[in-house]
């Protein structure tokens, strides 16, 4: 009787994000499986395999005859061997030979359905020629899905750059800033600094632009729900714009004042939130503008001329 293949139960399938579904159909078992493995032959004793498992913190060892998979020894086989007193004997007579295997060309969705169908958390993988090529654990599946999601996000973020139409003599870069991401905050400013260095902008201007970009980037990370930072490099100027998704500033005039800050103690403990960010940005900018609407968001724009003006000296 033909067998319908339940990827996931119908209930749960609705709850799986479509990107995850797409990924488990797109990825193959060979993209996720572990290929660097300990293997045994039929002649090894349970004791020898137990030692390998203990020393390498693994829970299953495939048994090979040439490249053919002939069995697998799991922790429960070792326990049985200890129990029944055949721990010093070769494994051949006792190892599990009824094997459920995956093929390396199967989509990962097959593997996910296997985990639903069988009580095992680990499946040996063979290729078209029935040769043993690896093992797939639930951990490998999760890791592969998460890695692929990361790639997807990187692709989406990179696409942002190309959404903007660059005019001739214009370079535009755009980066996402996440709320409270203190590990990453500053990376966009670092990239701007690198770009300006490549374009042989003077050191003084690079420093001013770096300070403005960094303060603006940090401000979005600290005070907003997240947003993006855009750099527009033109012949005569560099424009830095941050745009966030809220919550907005109630009193802009007050926010511009030095020493005014709404930062809480833990932000202060990180060395930020002294109410100097906006004044600092203004100080190094040739043009500075801040627009905010409570409940909506804030747009900050700083322009720095590439030619030193007299007043900025």
């Amino acid at each position, binding site marked *: 009787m033909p067998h319908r293949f339940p990827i996931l139960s119908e209930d749960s399938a609705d709850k799986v994000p479509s990107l995850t579904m797409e990924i488990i159909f797109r990825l193959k078992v060979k993209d996720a499986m572990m290929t660097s493995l300990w293997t045994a032959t039929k002649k090894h004793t349970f004791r020898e395999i137990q030692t390998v498992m203990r020393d390498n913190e693994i829970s299953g060892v495939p048994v090979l005859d040439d490249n053919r998979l002939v069995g697998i020894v799991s922790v429960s086989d070792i326990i049985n061997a200890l129990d029944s007193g055949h721990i010093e004997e070769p494994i051949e007579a006792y190892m599990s030979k009824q094997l459920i295997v995956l093929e390396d060309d199967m989509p990962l969705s097959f593997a996910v359905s296997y985990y639903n169908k069988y009580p095992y958390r680990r499946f040996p993988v063979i290729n078209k020629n029935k040769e043993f090529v690896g093992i797939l654990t639930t951990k490998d599946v999760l890791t592969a899905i998460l890695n692929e999601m990361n790639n997807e996000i990187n692709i989406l973020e990179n696409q942002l750059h190309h959404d903007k139409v660059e005019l001739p003599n214009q370079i535009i870069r755009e980066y996402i800033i996440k709320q409270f991401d203190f590990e990453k905050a500053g990376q966009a400013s670092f990239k701007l600094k690198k770009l300006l260095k490549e374009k042989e902008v003077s050191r003084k201007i690079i420093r001013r632009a770096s300070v403005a970009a960094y303060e603006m980037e940090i401000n979005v990370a600290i005070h907003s729900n997240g947003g993006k930072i855009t750099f527009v490099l033109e012949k005569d100027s560099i424009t830095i714009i941050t745009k966030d998704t809220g919550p907005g500033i109630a009193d802009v005039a007050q926010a511009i004042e030095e*020493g005014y800050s709404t930062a809480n103690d833990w932000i*202060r*403990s990180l*060395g930020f939130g*002294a109410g100097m960010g906006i004044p600092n940005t203004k100080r190094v900018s040739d043009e500075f503008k801040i627009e905010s609407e409570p409940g909506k968001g804030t747009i900050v724009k700083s322009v720095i001329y590439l030619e030193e003006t007299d007043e900025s000296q």
Partner: protein
Amino acid sequence: MRVSEVAAKTGIEIVTKSFNDIEVANGYTSDLLSDVMGFAEEESLLITIQAHKNTVAVASQLDLAGIVICNGRRIPEDMRLAAEQEGIAILQTEENQFVTSHKIYSAIRE
């Protein structure tokens, strides 16, 4: 050496009208109030740019000798009033924390 003597010797200005002119035991340089709370010894002069009312609260809590605000940072009125109420001296200098630390260290130790 008392707070007023340290001020005279280093040429740093005292901006509070009234304060307890106590002996200065040590100095502590920090801009992180949580760090000051954790490590500053009593009767120390706190060298900082944190020109904020909270700094007075921390100084009062720890019985510090005074607060030296560097880089010419503006002292808010509510900070000055709180300091006068608590009897804690606020000093103000245009110099940065590095130069100020050196001057005060030299004044009280040498």
